[in-house]
């Protein structure tokens, strides 16, 4: 039976909590007295390992430039990100940086913000018609695909690649995949991709990898395993070693400390990555420069084409001391 008393209690509690949160938000807003305030909506602070170094980089840059930043966490929910943007407009921030969960889904809210006179830039996810800071996910996928082809250069015949995907349907996953497929098609190589649902989680990636080895139990059935995000490969490398499948080559995108260690040991062939900490700094510095120039349509020179770095054992200097 439905417990109406409990429902009534929880509604009252929810209302009280909303009042407290509202009051807290009001206080927080009034505490911002700097001349320039940036609202930032970033994917998912607790579930995306890249978010934390990005925010750390943004905080450093904001402190250095004496500007305020307000970070909102839409928890990988595109509709919550739309609400983040509307909320920033209501709070009269001077500019907004959006790390898009979906580059298309976020467009209507961006148009609303622009109509209200609040400039918006896209960060680490290219949104049509907006200035963009960060690497292009499509190009990022292409660079990773070239790294995979390099790793496979000594293997003859058809090749099968296991790929740990991000969150299915999100634009980083979709565009990176599109970039990879373009390069593989252009290479003329006979490549089959076996996608594994991993949701950016190392634990889920390991589960998918264990199933993949059952599906392709013989040496030579699976030549390479790649990941779309950081930290997802090392547990699978350990599992492959424990189960006599050390012939499998591994590559990944993005970088955490365990990835760096694996590259150094030679168990991870290579990584294509953007330095997310530097990207965080770049987002804030770009908006500050655009504000000073009075032009939110043109990217400053320093923000154009940030590098996609490739690191292998032979070029280990590229990732030494990086990662988080």
């Amino acid at each position, binding site marked *: *039976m*439905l417990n109406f008393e*409990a*429902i009534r*209690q*929880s509604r009252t*509690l*929810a209302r009280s*909590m909303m009042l407290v949160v509202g009051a807290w938000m009001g206080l927080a807003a009034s505490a911002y007295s700097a001349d320039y305030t940036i609202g930032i909506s970033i994917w998912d*602070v*607790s*579930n*995306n*390992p890249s*978010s*934390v*170094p990005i*925010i750390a980089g943004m905080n450093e840059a904001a402190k250095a430039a004496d500007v305020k930043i307000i970070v909102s966490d839409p928890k990988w929910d595109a509709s919550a990100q739309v609400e983040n943007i509307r909320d920033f407009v209501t709070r009269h921030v001077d500019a907004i940086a959006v790390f898009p969960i979906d580059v298309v889904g976020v467009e209507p809210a961006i148009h609303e913000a622009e109509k209200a006179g609040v400039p918006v830039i896209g960060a680490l996810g290219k949104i049509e018609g907006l200035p963009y800071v960060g690497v292009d996910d499509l190009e990022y996928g292409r660079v990773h695909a070239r790294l995979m082809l390099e790793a496979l250069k000594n293997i003859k015949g058809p090749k099968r690649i296991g790929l740990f*995907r991000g969150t*299915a*349907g999100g634009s980083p996953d979709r565009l990176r995949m599109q970039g990879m497929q373009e390069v593989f098609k252009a290479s003329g190589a006979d490549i089959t991709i*076996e*996608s*594994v*649902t991993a949701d*950016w*989680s*190392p*634990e889920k990636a*390991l*589960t*998918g990898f*264990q*199933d*993949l080895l*059952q*599906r392709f*139990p013989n040496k030579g059935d699976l030549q390479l395993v790649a990941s779309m995000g950081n*930290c997802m490969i*090392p*547990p699978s490398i*350990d*599992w492959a070693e*424990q189960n006599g499948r050390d012939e499998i080559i591994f590559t990944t995108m993005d970088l*955490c*400390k*365990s990835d760096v260690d694996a590259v150094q040991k030679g168990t991870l062939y290579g990584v294509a990555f953007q330095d997310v900490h530097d990207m965080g700094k770049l987002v804030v510095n770009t908006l500050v420069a655009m504000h000073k120039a009075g032009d939110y349509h043109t990217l400053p020179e320093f923000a154009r084409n940030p590098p996609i770095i490739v690191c292998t054992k032979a070029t280990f200097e590229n990732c030494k001391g990086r990662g*988080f």
Partner: protein
Amino acid sequence: MTINGAGLLKRYGFMTALLLPAIFLLIVDERFRSAQNLSNVLAQSSIVGIVAIGMTLVMILGGFDLSVGAIAALSGLCAVVAFGHGDPLHMALGVGAAIGCGIAIGLVNGVLISRLAINPLIATLAMASIVRGVVLIASEGTIYRAQGDAAAITIIALGRWHVFPIAGFFFIGSIILGWFILKRMRFGHYIYAIGGSETASTLAGLPVSRMVIVTYAIVGGFAGVAGLLLLARTGSALTNAGVGLELEAITATVIGGTRLGGGEGAISGTVLGVLLLGVIRNGLNLNGVSPFWQPFIIGCILLITVVVSRRADSGGRRSRAGFL
């Protein structure tokens, strides 16, 4: 002795229906029935399974615990910090810290629910948010890896005794403990009684408040063990560890026949529910089903299985509100 066909169907039809996907895969898929794969499925299902056993207790009591995933994340973090470089004393401390942390948070949940009369949904949801926040604050969003000899902790999640996964022993231990509590202890009988009617239990003089607190503490303890296994699977305490664990555990528990309103349920049903989820996911991965199709197919299989099992179990009884 006479064999009553209808009685047998009613008694075992429900459980058989839950096993249908596994039986189907055992017959048609050679890779699925390999000892190595079945061992993987058991190991992969163990973490959800341990949490689901705890969830069964609290749901029979008439409650919910949405904080178990967050508790698992914090328990893993506590453990890896306490492990240090892995000397035996610190390892033991780490194990104690993980389980103790879970029990402590569970106790707080119990007090909030029983003494402050907060709806379990709200109390444990708020606790989940607080605990996730603590994980992020304490770890500064970075990944804590097991250092030195402590890296050997991975044996409990990835190791095997012959072909049997060591993680499976933890699951079986939890099953035995859960069964013992529910079937052999007066405490378990009280759980059923309170879930059936809290008012009647209070009038009968049962220590309802104390029972609620202890049950939530037990659930927290189970979540602590799950956190230890999550840590062991990747050798790292991840800030996003255990995300979605609570929903998987609740799903498995409800599939297994535990009544949402409390008062009914059994460990055996929950175990089948856990294995059903694990088998479906494994079967889809083994057959290379696209990540875009997997959620759709999982939903359909779950619905069909549960409809078949409920028809076998209910003997025509129906609740339009779905709380039967």
